[in-house]
């Protein structure tokens, strides 16, 4: 995005919007109030009074505080709604702290709140101290829950039919599918985050898919995961099938493909 060069004076409108946005996006205090100090250390009440009028009921700062609180409540509510599993893993207080740090480091760059959590997975990896000692579990859960959001409204292509296969139409996977190799059984953890037995590492291969517009998880054999991941990354069908463990019978692979066909995972 094009920004004015530092040597270019800000227009009055831009200047006021930059000041207002600075105040609105500052993290709240523990008591959910606006901070008394501006980002440069000056008294916030003094800074805000230079551009916002007070009225009979509210000071300039109190008027800006309404927007400051709305900003944080709206964004934190959105993350709470999108990441209930992560909230379950971390507990309310740590989840909220993680989200505040995340939004402060990665403010929204999209016109839609849907995208707000897109970089939470990455942030968790960058700041393990915020989720320790459950960082890997939190990372897996954030990844899974973001996948649900993506799968829910991703596009779909016409389903591949037996006729298409006979006509040698290239086999592709539906664009809404996501495949994961997790270190934890996050699909179960999502339902029962307090079950301590699930906190132990457990390799889990998972497909996030949808049927009739609702999202589902499907456990996969490691070999099945490799085939699907390979196909998704553009590996030719024959080569993808070569990624299967030797112990797997050809009949089993055939059954997998039949099942995936029935689920509508292959498209033109």
């Amino acid at each position, binding site marked *: 995005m094009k920004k004015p060069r530092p040597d270019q004076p800000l227009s009055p409108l831009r200047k006021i919007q930059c000041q207002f*946005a600075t105040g609105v996006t500052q993290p709240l205090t523990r008591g959910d109030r606006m901070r008394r100090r501006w980002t440069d250390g000056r008294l916030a009440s003094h800074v805000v009074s230079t551009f916002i009028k007070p009225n009979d009921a509210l000071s300039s700062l109190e008027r800006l505080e*309404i927007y400051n609180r709305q900003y944080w409540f709206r964004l934190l509510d959105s993350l709470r709604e999108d990441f209930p599993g992560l909230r379950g893993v971390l507990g309310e207080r740590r989840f909220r702290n993680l989200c505040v740090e995340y939004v402060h480091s990665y403010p929204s760059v999209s016109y839609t709140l849907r995208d707000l959590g897109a970089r939470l997975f990455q942030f968790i990896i960058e700041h393990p101290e915020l989720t320790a000692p459950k960082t890997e579990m939190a990372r897996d859960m954030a990844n899974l829950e973001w996948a649900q959001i993506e799968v829910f409204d991703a596009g779909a292509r016409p389903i591949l039919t037996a006729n298409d296969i006979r006509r040698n139409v290239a086999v592709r996977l539906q664009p809404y599918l996501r495949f994961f190799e997790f270190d934890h059984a996050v699909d179960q953890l999502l339902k029962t985050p307090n079950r301590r037995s699930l906190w132990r590492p457990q390799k889990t291969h998972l497909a996030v898919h949808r049927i009739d517009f609702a999202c589902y998880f499907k456990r996969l054999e490691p070999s099945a995961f490799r085939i699907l991941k390979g196909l998704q990354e553009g590996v030719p069908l024959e080569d993808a099938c070569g990624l299967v463990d030797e112990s797997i019978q050809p009949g089993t692979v055939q059954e997998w493909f039949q099942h995936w066909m029935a689920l509508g995972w292959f498209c033109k």
Partner: protein
Amino acid sequence: MANSFEPFRDWGIGIGLRVPHYDHILTRKPAVDWFEIISENYMVDGGRPLHILDQILEQYRVVQHGVSLYFGSTDPLNRTHLKRLKQLVQRTKTPWLTDHLCWGSVDGRYTHDLLPMPYTFEAARHTAKRIREARDFLEVPIAVENVSSYAEFHVSEMTEWEFLTEVVERADCGILLDVNNIYVSSRNHSFNPHDYVDQVPHHRVAQIHIAGHSKFEKYIIDTHDHPVIDPVWKLYAHALERVGNVPTLLEWDDRIPSFEEVHREALKANRFLKESIHEKAAA
């Protein structure tokens, strides 16, 4: 100048399409004049949102209402956003499109709020230019909505209604007159809401919004989570006296009750719309 939204004056009363009502609408097919959708909720590649929307489009008239074009922002218009929006406009064939007279992003960082404008001539010129750019790209008539506000700026050079007038005249666009927002702002900033309604260019009013709000000790917030209160209905009646019948939409976005309750609340507007018709006929 004639109202450029004249062909839609008889559209009646619409309701905001909301997720908790999907099943009721699709199975019972209630008689609703039209639905308003939040554009951003359907600017996606597929899945349930578009599946539902396509079914609604088969049976109902739909108008798009946006929350993030931010006509008043000093950032360049987001081309990705506009392209997505245009795809949706082509899908819904919305006869007009609305968004807010506000700003909400700086340097590509979004606040997801409808932030108040300073009422200056510079801001009016800037905002009008962006509305024209958006309309030229989207190829659909645009109406801008007045927002509720909780802050005022020292630099303002005019009243809010003068600013709205300045913007829409420069942009040659319509107004989505939100009478609840006028009421909320009038209480927060101590002005007479009737002055506001009286002084906007009536021929440009394309649509009206009504809604409920929340009252706090020292201010009122536009929360869309209550029925419409009597003073807002009275202001709505006053607005209809001035602008004549225009499509009216009830917004209910939080603590959403059953479809029947929302519909019943919206249909209360009929009383005033019909009165307005009679008054026009008598005149």
